[in-house]
C-alpha cells in the first residue's frame, strides 16, 4: 500500500465524513433549540477530525520509516576497513537505496531469477531508467532486497493505522453532532492552530539557518582564532596551498568589512537624495495623472534582477567611468573599471525604488489636516514639507533608510561583477575594493569540501553579515519607537 494511495483514502474518508456530518446536522431534531453551528461547520469538523490526525500520523510514520530503513541497512553493511572501495558510508547507503528503488521496478519474472552480481544487475536496472554508479558491490543486493521487504511491511502497517485513525476520527466527529455542539468554535481553533504553525515554520527556519551557520563557524574558529578573524587586516586565504604544511591562510575581516561599508555608503549617498526627492515630488506635487505613470515606472527598477544590474555595471558603467577619467586626465584612467564608485552608483540605482516607494507611502500617510494647518498659517508648500510633513514622517523614513542600507550591505551580484575581488583597504573610491558577500561567493565556488578554513570562513562571514543587518534592523526599530513616542 503506497503512501499516496493511503493519503487519498484518508481524504476520501474525510470527504464522506463531511457530507455525513452535514446531513446529520441538517436532519437532527432541534428540539426547539437554536442550533449553535451551521450544518457545514459540523461537516468541516468531521472532516478535520478524521483527516487531520491520520495525515499527521502518515507524515510522522514516513519519516520514522526512512530512519528505520537506513539504520537496518547500516547494521547489515560489512564493517568499514582501510580497503573499503566506497569513499563514505553515506555513499554506500545511497547506492543501496538506489538499487532498492530499481528492484521495485522489475517485473515478477525478472525478480524470480535475479542476477547475483552487480555487474549483471546494473544494465538491467538502467534499462528501467534507474542509473547507478559503476562501483556498486555485490553485497549490496541482498541488503537492498531486505530494504524493500521492510519498506513494504512498514508501509502496510502505517497505511492500516492511518485508515483506522481516519475512520475512528470520523466516528468521533459524527457522534459529536448535537444541536448545541460548538462545531463552529472547534473549526475556528483548528484554523488558529494552522496559522500558528505557519508562522512557527518561518521562525524555526530562521533559527535553523542561524544554528547551521553557527556550528560551521565554530568549526572555523577552531583553526583560526576569532581575534585574528575580526581584527585581522590581511585577507589571504591561500587557496592553492590549502592543506600544505605551514601555509596557514590569513583571514582578516577588516578589509572586507571596510569595502562592504564603503560601497554601501556610496550607494546610499546616491540613492537617498534621489529616492527621497522623487518620493516628495510624487507624494506632494505630482498630479494623479503623473503619479499613476511615474510610480509604476520607478517600481520597474525594483523588478530588475540584480545580476542584470551587475552586468550593466560591468559592461557599461565601469568602462564609461574609466574612459571618462582617461579623457579628463588626458590618457591616464584614474577610475578603474571595477571600482567602489561603479559598484556604488549601480547599487544606488537599484536602491532608488526602495527608498522612494517606502518613503512615498510614509509621506502620504501623514494626515492631510497637518498640511492644511501649515498652509492655513501662510507657509509655502516646501516650508510645509520641510517643517511639518518630513518631521512627522521622519521615524518611518529613518526606518525605511536603515532597511535599504541593510539591503545594500547584503547585496551580492552587483558587487561580484562590479566591485572587484582585491581585498584592499583604501579610501580612494576609484580603486577596486571587495565585500563580504563577494568573498563568500569566491570561497564557496568550485569543487569543495567543507572541512578546511578556506571554505568554512564563508560561514563565519555569513554569520557576521547576518549580525550586522540584525543590529541595523534593531537600531531602526529603536529609532522608530523613540520618535513615535514623541510624535503621536
Amino acid at each position, binding site marked *: 500500500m503506497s503512501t499516496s494511495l493511503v493519503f487519498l483514502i484518508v481524504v476520501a474518508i474525510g470527504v464522506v465524513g463531511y457530507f455525513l456530518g452535514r446531513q446529520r446536522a441538517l436532519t437532527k431534531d432541534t428540539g426547539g433549540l437554536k442550533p449553535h453551528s451551521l450544518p457545514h461547520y459540523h461537516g468541516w469538523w468531521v472532516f478535520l477530525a478524521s483527516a487531520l490526525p491520520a495525515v499527521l500520523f502518515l507524515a510522522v510514520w514516513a519519516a520514522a520509516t526512512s530512519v528505520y530503513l537506513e539504520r537496518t541497512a547500516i547494521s547489515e553493511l560489512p564493517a568499514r576497513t582501510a580497503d573499503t572501495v566506497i569513499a563514505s558510508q553515506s555513499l554506500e547507503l545511497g547506492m543501496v537505496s538506489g538499487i532498492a528503488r530499481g528492484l521495485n521496478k522489475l517485473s515478477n519474472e525478472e525478480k524470480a531469477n535475479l542476477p547475483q552480481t552487480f555487474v549483471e544487475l546494473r544494465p538491467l536496472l538502467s534499462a528501467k531508467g534507474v542509473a547507478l554508479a559503476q562501483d556498486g558491490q555485490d553485497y549490496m543486493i541482498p541488503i537492498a532486497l531486505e530494504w524493500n521487504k521492510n519498506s513494504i511491511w512498514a508501509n502496510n502497517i502505517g497505511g492500516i493505522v492511518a485508515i483506522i485513525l481516519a475512520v475512528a476520527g470520523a466516528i468521533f466527529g459524527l457522534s459529536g453532532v448535537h444541536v448545541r455542539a460548538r462545531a463552529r468554535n472547534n473549526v475556528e481553533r483548528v484554523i488558529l492552530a494552522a496559522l500558528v504553525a505557519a508562522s512557527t515554520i518561518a521562525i524555526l527556519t530562521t533559527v535553523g539557518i542561524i544554528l547551521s551557520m553557527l556550528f560551521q563557524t565554530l568549526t572555523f574558529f577552531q583553526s583560526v582564532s576569532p581575534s585574528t578573524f575580526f581584527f585581522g587586516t590581511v585577507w589571504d586565504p591561500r587557496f592553492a596551498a590549502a592543506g600544505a604544511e605551514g601555509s596557514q591562510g590569513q583571514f582578516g575581516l577588516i578589509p572586507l568589512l571596510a569595502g562592504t561599508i564603503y560601497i554601501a555608503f556610496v550607494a546610499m549617498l546616491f540613492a537617498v537624495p534621489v529616492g527621497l526627492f522623487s518620493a516628495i515630488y510624487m507624494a506632494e506635487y505630482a498630479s494623479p495623472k503623473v503619479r499613476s505613470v511615474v510610480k509604476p515606472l520607478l517600481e520597474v527598477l525594483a523588478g530588475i534582477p540584480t545580476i542584470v544590474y551587475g552586468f550593466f555595471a560591468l559592461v557599461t558603467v565601469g568602462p564609461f567611468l574609466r574612459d571618462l577619467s582617461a579623457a579628463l586626465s588626458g590618457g591616464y584612467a584614474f577610475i578603474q573599471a571595477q571600482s567602489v564608485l561603479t559598484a556604488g552608483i549601480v547599487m544606488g540605482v537599484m536602491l532608488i525604488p526602495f527608498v522612494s516607494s517606502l518613503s512615498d507611502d510614509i509621506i502620504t500617510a501623514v494626515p492631510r489636516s497637518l498640511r492644511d*494647518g501649515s498652509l492655513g498659517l*501662510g507657509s509655502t508648500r516646501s516650508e510645509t514639507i520641510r517643517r511639518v510633513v518630513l*518631521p*512627522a514622517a521622519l521615524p518611518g523614513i529613518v526606518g525605511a533608510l536603515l532597511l535599504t542600507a541593510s539591503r545594500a550591505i547584503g547585496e551580492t551580484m552587483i558587487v561580484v561583477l562590479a566591485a572587484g575581488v582585491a581585498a584592499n583597504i583604501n579610501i580612494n573610491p576609484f580603486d577596486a575594493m571587495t565585500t563580504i558577500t563577494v568573498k563568500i561567493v569566491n570561497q564557496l565556488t568550485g569543487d569543495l569540501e567543507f572541512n578546511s578554513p578556506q571554505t568554512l570562513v564563508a560561514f563565519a562571514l555569513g554569520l557576521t553579515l547576518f549580525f550586522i543587518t540584525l543590529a541595523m534592523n534593531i537600531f531602526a526599530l529603536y529609532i522608530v519607537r523613540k520618535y513615535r513616542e514623541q510624535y503621536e
Partner: protein
Amino acid sequence: MNLMTERNLEKAVNDKMNAQPNAIKMQGKDVTVHYGEKQALFGVSLDVPEKMVTALIGPSGCGKSTFLRSLNRMNDTIEGCKIGGKITLDDEDIYNPKIDVVELRARVGMVFQKPNPFPKSIFENVAYGPRIHGLAKNRQQLEEIVEKSLRRASLFEEVKDRLHEAGTGLSGGQQQRLCIARAIAVSPEVILMDEPCSALDPIATAKVEELIDELRQNYTIVIVTHSMQQAARVSQRTAMFHLGNLVEVGDTEMMFTNPTEKRTQDYITGRFG
C-alpha cells in the same frame, strides 16, 4: 421654540446698542465654486463686517464650509476646484493673480474642524507661524509672541510649565485652543473657524466659545457651525446657507427671533437639516 436664552438675548441686544456700524472687512460677490463637474456654490454674495463674529449655518453639504475655505483660498489645495465671482479683503481682490496666496493666508488665518496640532512641542506649534514669517527678531521676542498668543487663547496658565512637551499630548479642547493660539500668533486680521467645536466635549466647547467672544475685540471672525445655540451665543451676524445658495443674512438676534425666510425658520427650529 426659541433657542435663545434670556441672557443671550440680553447680550445680543446690548451688542446691537453698543455696536458702531462696522466697516466691511471681506466681501464675496456672486461667488461660485465647482469641484470638478459638481457645483457647490451658486453665486453667493456676503459681506463680512470687521471685528464681529459672522456665523455661517445650514444643513450639511449646503456650501458653508466651501464658502469659508474660499475666503483664504484653502480651496486651491483641492484637486479640480474652480472658483468664480469675486472675493475682496479690504477692497482687494484675493483671486487676483498678482496676490501672494501665502501672504493672504497669513492675513486670513484658519482653525479647522479637528484639532490639528503639529507633532512638535507646544512652544514650537505657536512659534511656527512667527518663524516662517520672520515676525520675531530674536528668541526673546519669539517667546513674548508665544506667551501673548497662548494668553489670548486662554491656554497659557494651563500649559506654562510644559511648553516644551508635545502639543499632541494635550486634551482635545486644549489642542483646539492651541490651534487658535497658533493662528493668532501670526497676527491675522481675519480668523476663519470651520466647526471648531465639533470634536469637543461641552466643557471644552464652552471655553472655546468664551474665547471666540473675547477675540472679536481684535479680530474679524467667520465661524461655520452646526449648532444653532452656538451661532446664537457667539455671533453677531448669521448667514443661512441651503443647497449652495445664501438664503438669508442678518443680525443674529433678528435671524433667531424673526427670520424673514421660511427655510431659515424651519432650520433653526429643527424642522429640517
